[in-house]
């Protein structure tokens, strides 16, 4: 059962694409059968490069590589036959139905007859596919597509399975399903490599290879790395002003890293482990309690911590004048596509200076709601108000008050950094005389001056994110709309991002954010959980987590809360839904 044969052996493995920093720099690691090996690191760390080399799709520049006892440079065919590889965007045929896709891959792999029936039964058992088999693959939600892709990759059982970010853009529930499908294989001795940008996902693997900018940061069981920060993670309750408290704590020499977690601050200290810690050393009032160290803490520790100092962007921003009226208002928002209600009667308000998070599984109506709130979609009924202005009637004026940052950092890749900023200054109607100082200011604050004349398309992800944020803040908006703003970004850049956001909120800016990172949801003052088009829960993170508390799980995480609330709602509705359908 626990067959720990060495499937992949790497020594000094290096890959270069042209001059500059190698895509992968001298990696020594092994991948064993019967385990899940996590391959963790932010975008651009070299994860895909490594997987493609193992799959025999890319030749290494230097170093040794043996896969299933074969050198991929000599016999790539052998590896193709014995190893399975699922790229980030699995090749589903979007115009074929779910069943047709499965049939096609079974035909291609020569899985026929009784074996085929068994395989399909096994694969379909993981999720409630049955009602989806006739649906067109292209019409599935992101999570469902990912599951179908994995199912297709699993039709013939490989000896080694390479998965490139199967969990990206997938909600926690679908992610658990994917995980279960893979665990089942591991029991049979298959070696699985699961690449991910989510460190909490990597933490669940038996061993991990952590990469950052091509360099190996750590190889081994995650507990070993996490052990380095044991005794250094502390939680401090904060009654009021948790954002200000965090920024204060981060200025302390002792504190390496910190995040907001509901009504507590979670801090990682520098130096050695300690038995007791007095939070007043970091200028905090509450009583510090030891916290369970996490893999991400250790990762940040290994990288030397996030950049220090307060957010310069927040310092440079004007103070938004106080106002008692809600800044964002959803009034019975409904959007119908045909007779399908993507968003169904969603109402909430967000006061000034609050971070409001929209969470929800893939395809639950979260994006539709978000789009209506920032004016990208016209509601079928109901109203969306920003700073009291109806987006439908005084759209242009309302839009001039909001800043928007999309998942893919919507920049003009052919334009230089400076030209991008000039463009955004222009369309947001900054007077000509103020444009140049504003652009220069942004270049300084976001440390982009050295890249000012480079085409923005070629910048590393972290820079793109900074530029995208600079573009969104050019006109000093009252409201910020962030659509999965940190997906694929490394934890250090993410910390910096939230430092800016927290600083802005202190200045009175209101933020609406959607995210798949559950620990990021903890930064929010309140969270709205959208499921099946409805707002099924609304409240501060701690309140939502409290709802998921059970005897077995006394301190549920945000992810537990998410899954609990969705499943509870399903059970409640389940009764009357089943009556209508056979």
């Amino acid at each position, binding site marked *: 059962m626990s067959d720990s044969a060495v499937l992949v052996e790497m020594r000094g493995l290096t890959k270069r694409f042209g001059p500059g920093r190698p895509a992968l720099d001298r990696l020594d690691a092994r991948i064993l059968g019967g385990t899940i090996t996590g391959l963790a690191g932010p975008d651009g760390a070299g994860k895909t490069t490594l997987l493609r080399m193992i799959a025999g799709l890319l030749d290494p520049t230097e170093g040794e590589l043996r896969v299933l006892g074969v050198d991929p440079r000599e016999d790539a065919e052998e590896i193709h036959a014995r190893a399975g590889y699922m790229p980030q965007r699995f090749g589903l045929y979007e115009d074929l139905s779910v069943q047709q896709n499965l049939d096609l891959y079974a035909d291609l792999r020569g899985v026929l007859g009784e074996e085929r029936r068994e395989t399909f039964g096994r694969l379909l058992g993981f999720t409630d596919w049955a009602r989806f088999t006739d649906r067109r693959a292209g019409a599935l939600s992101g999570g469902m597509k990912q599951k179908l892709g994995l199912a297709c990759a699993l039709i013939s059982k490989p000896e080694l399975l390479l998965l490139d970010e199967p969990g990206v853009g997938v909600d926690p529930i679908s992610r658990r399903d994917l995980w279960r499908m893979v665990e089942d294989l591991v029991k049979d001795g298959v070696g699985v490599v699961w690449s991910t940008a989510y460190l909490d996902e990597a933490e669940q693997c038996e061993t991990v290879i952590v990469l950052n900018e091509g360099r190996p940061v750590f190889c081994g069981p995650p507990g070993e790395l996490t052990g380095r920060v044991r005794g250094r993670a502390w939680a401090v309750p904060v009654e009021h002003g948790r954002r200000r408290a965090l920024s204060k704590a981060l200025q302390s020499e002792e504190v390496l890293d910190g995040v907001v977690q509901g009504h507590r601050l979670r801090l990682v200290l520098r130096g050695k482990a300690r038995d007791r810690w007095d939070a007043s050393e970091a200028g905090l009032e509450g009583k510090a309690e030891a916290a369970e160290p996490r893999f991400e803490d250790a990762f940040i520790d290994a990288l030397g911590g996030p950049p220090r100092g307060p957010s310069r962007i927040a310092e440079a921003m004007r103070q938004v004048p106080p106002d008692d009226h809600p800044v964002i208002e959803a009034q019975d928002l409904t959007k119908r596509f045909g007779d399908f209600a993507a968003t169904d009667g969603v109402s909430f308000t967000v006061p000034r200076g609050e971070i409001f998070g929209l969470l929800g599984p893939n395809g639950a109506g979260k994006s539709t709601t978000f789009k209506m709130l920032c004016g990208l979609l016209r509601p079928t009924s109901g109203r969306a108000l920003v700073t009291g202005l109806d987006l439908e009637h005084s759209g242009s004026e309302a*839009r001039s008050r909001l800043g928007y940052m999309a998942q893919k950092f*919507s920049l*003009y890749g052919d334009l230089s950094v400076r030209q991008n900023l000039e463009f955004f200054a*222009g369309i*947001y109607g900054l007077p000509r005389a103020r444009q140049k100082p504003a652009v220069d200011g942004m270049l300084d604050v976001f440390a982009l001056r050295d890249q000012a004349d480079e085409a923005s398309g070629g910048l590393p992800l972290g820079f793109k994110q900074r530029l995208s944020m600079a573009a969104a803040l050019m006109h000093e908006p009252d409201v910020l709309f962030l659509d999965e703003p940190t997906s694929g970004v490394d934890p250090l850049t993410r910390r910096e991002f939230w430092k800016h956001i927290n600083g802005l909120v202190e200045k009175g800016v209101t933020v609406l954010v959607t995210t798949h990172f559950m620990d990021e949801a903890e930064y929010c003052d309140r969270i709205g959980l959208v499921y099946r088009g409805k707002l099924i829960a609304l409240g501060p993170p701690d309140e939502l987590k409290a709802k998921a508390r059970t005897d077995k799980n006394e301190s549920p995480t945000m992810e537990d809360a998410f899954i609990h609330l969705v499943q509870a709602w399903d059970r409640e509705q389940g009764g009357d839904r089943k009556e209508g359908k056979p």
Partner: protein
Amino acid sequence: MFQRIRSLVVKELLATLRDKKARIALIVPPILQLFVFAFAGTQEVTNISLAVFNPDAGRASAELVQRLEASGNFSHIRFVRSTGEMQAAIDRQQVVAGVRFQDDFSARLLGGQSAPVQLILDGRKSNAAQIVQGYVQSVVEQFGRERAAEGRVRLADAAIEPRNWFNPNLIYLWFTVPSLVAMITTLTALNVTSMSVAREREMGTFDQLLVSPLRPLEILAGKALPAFGLALAQATIFLVVAVLVFRIPFRGSPPLLYGALIVFIAAMVGVGLFISSLSATQQQALLGTFTFMVPAMLLSGYASPIENMPAWLQPLTYLNPLRYMMVVVKGVYLKALPAAEVLHQVWPMALIAAATVALATWQFRRRSA
């Protein structure tokens, strides 16, 4: 508002000119078009072979054959020894036409009788055949006239002295190059507008524009103006090349031509924007452009005269702005078409422009809000 549009136009031009692929798409196809259409697309009949079957041993037929040879219209004269051989030469497309004399041709002429010559044409090449017929006919008529002048044969028919106005030497380039000015503005206006919105949709920047204070109309204007600029710039380059390189004299009024061009580009930009508001990807936009472009070219009177099209098809050409622009550009360029005549072609284009721009605006607003 103007500042916002200005920023959009600047960005659009920068994005088009900084993107290597877009730059190539803007420069290479027009140059290719210019040369391909100007030289390969010629309908002038040169390089043709003629078969001659001459069983007559007399002087008259030999002289006529020499005249055909000397006319310069035929690159090669192929002598055959039987009707069968001539048929085979036409079948194999070695010759476009065959001239067949009767064995008593010279004798009949000497006897003062009329002596028919048979011309067999390859009907599969209707255009070339027509032209060859013209060439042969003129040589034979000339021959007949001169013999009549010598008093040997009475010639009753009046002689035709053709003169080609506006293009005295019937140089084919004089016809194609000005037409290409209309073609190229069509291509650029359609390409730039239809691709730019689709490109932004693909990159996700379109949402960014929609959440900015820009109004849909401003975005539309920001997309349309660069297309105007680029299309007019290319038209100008073509006109300069036509005058300086191809040495085709420009006879009309440039402001008149540019005025008509602006109305024409507006119509095309409207079509381009409409295509772009329908397409989600650049690929779809490209397909849409070609779906419109090819019929528009064929129905413009460029490839074949509109009068030659079937009656039911002709009304369709009235919807095609290129049809009017072809008349204007050739007219103004080659024969200084007067303003009143230009206006006669411009108002239907203006009507079409109003319709396409309105349609694009409507579709754009519907899709973007």
